[in-house]
């Protein structure tokens, strides 16, 4: 049958939210709906499994972005939860004028910014470093890895939040400059300069802290 594309979804853990052997027939242009759109449609039809699949897909990405921005474990989880609650309540009015990820990451950024504005007295990076090392008396390489992690987080925390956001979206999440510009609502040139400045500052800080040698 001309113009018919048959997609057989594999029964892997990635697609466990969709019934095994699910077959989607696409007529005409052959344009393939992406996975996120499928989950959103599923949710909008009243099946909350669609929302759960979105959560499972993005929860760790959101968590890592937030943690890189604020540097606190428990608060990162709370913010992540708040992000997905906003997604749940806002999904019905999400008009799909942008990619779901653009919309999601914007919510992540705004929620994290709100937290940072309200909690200016959060635990310092030195305290995080000390807690991390003291609480986990284990093998030396584990301690070293934790120290390195704390050092990286301290370095990230030392740069302005706008630079931090850009470099996190680029190097943690792997977004392109164009995608970052849509999330942060700024020009691509601005994204480039923020990432450039972020890396310059991180280089200086990491060299000073001994977290890097040239």
């Amino acid at each position: 049958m001309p113009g018919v594309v048959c997609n057989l979804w594999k029964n892997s853990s990635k697609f466990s939210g969709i019934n095994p052997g699910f077959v989607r027939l696409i007529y005409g242009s052959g344009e393939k709906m992406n996975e996120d759109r499928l989950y959103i449609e599923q949710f909008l039809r009243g099946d909350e499994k669609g929302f759960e699949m979105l959560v499972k897909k993005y929860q760790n990405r959101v968590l890592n972005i937030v943690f890189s921005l604020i540097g606190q474990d428990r608060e990162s989880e709370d913010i992540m939860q708040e992000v997905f609650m906003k997604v749940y309540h806002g999904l019905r009015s999400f008009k799909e004028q942008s990619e779901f990820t653009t919309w999601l990451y914007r919510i992540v950024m705004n929620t994290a910014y709100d937290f940072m504005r309200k909690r200016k007295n959060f635990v310092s990076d030195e305290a995080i470093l000390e807690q991390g090392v003291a609480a986990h008396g284990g093998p030396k390489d584990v301690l070293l890895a934790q120290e390195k992690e704390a050092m990286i987080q301290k370095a990230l925390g030392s740069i302005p939040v706008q630079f931090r956001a850009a470099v996190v979206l680029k190097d943690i999440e792997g977004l392109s400059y164009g995608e970052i510009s849509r999330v942060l609502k700024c020009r691509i040139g601005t994204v480039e300069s923020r990432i450039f400045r972020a890396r310059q500052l991180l280089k200086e800080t990491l060299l000073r802290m001994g977290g890097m040698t040239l």
Partner: protein
Amino acid sequence: MNACVKVKNLLSRYLDQETSQADTAFVEAHVHTCPLCRKELSALAQVKNVITTRQRKALPEEYVVSRLREQLDAERVMEQQPSWLENIGGLSRKLIPVPVGVIAVSLIFFMLISGQQVKSLEDSLLNADSTTTEMALDVILGE
């Protein structure tokens, strides 16, 4: 030197594979011959690598989903509970202004009465006969 300045401004973008073909070729050709720019590129690449390869946190899938379910269920319970106003019932709600009005009228009445009494006291003091006033002064002055 101009080439070094131009290349340094392109290095971050080059690392992210966001340069045009022409700029990519320019950077690669220059870095091949310039040790300073090569060192700078290496440093930026290390910084990028440090961030890119840092440990990623991961939570169990069902943990996050179940927490969200709990919070959503709690929200639904709150939405279903009527507010204290709804609990009162229609007729009772209409009667609420009555005692409020009674209290307001009582307060106004009390204020008016108090005002009259103060005025009466002032008048009596002003109009008191001289004998009474002199006697009061004698007492006060101890004569």
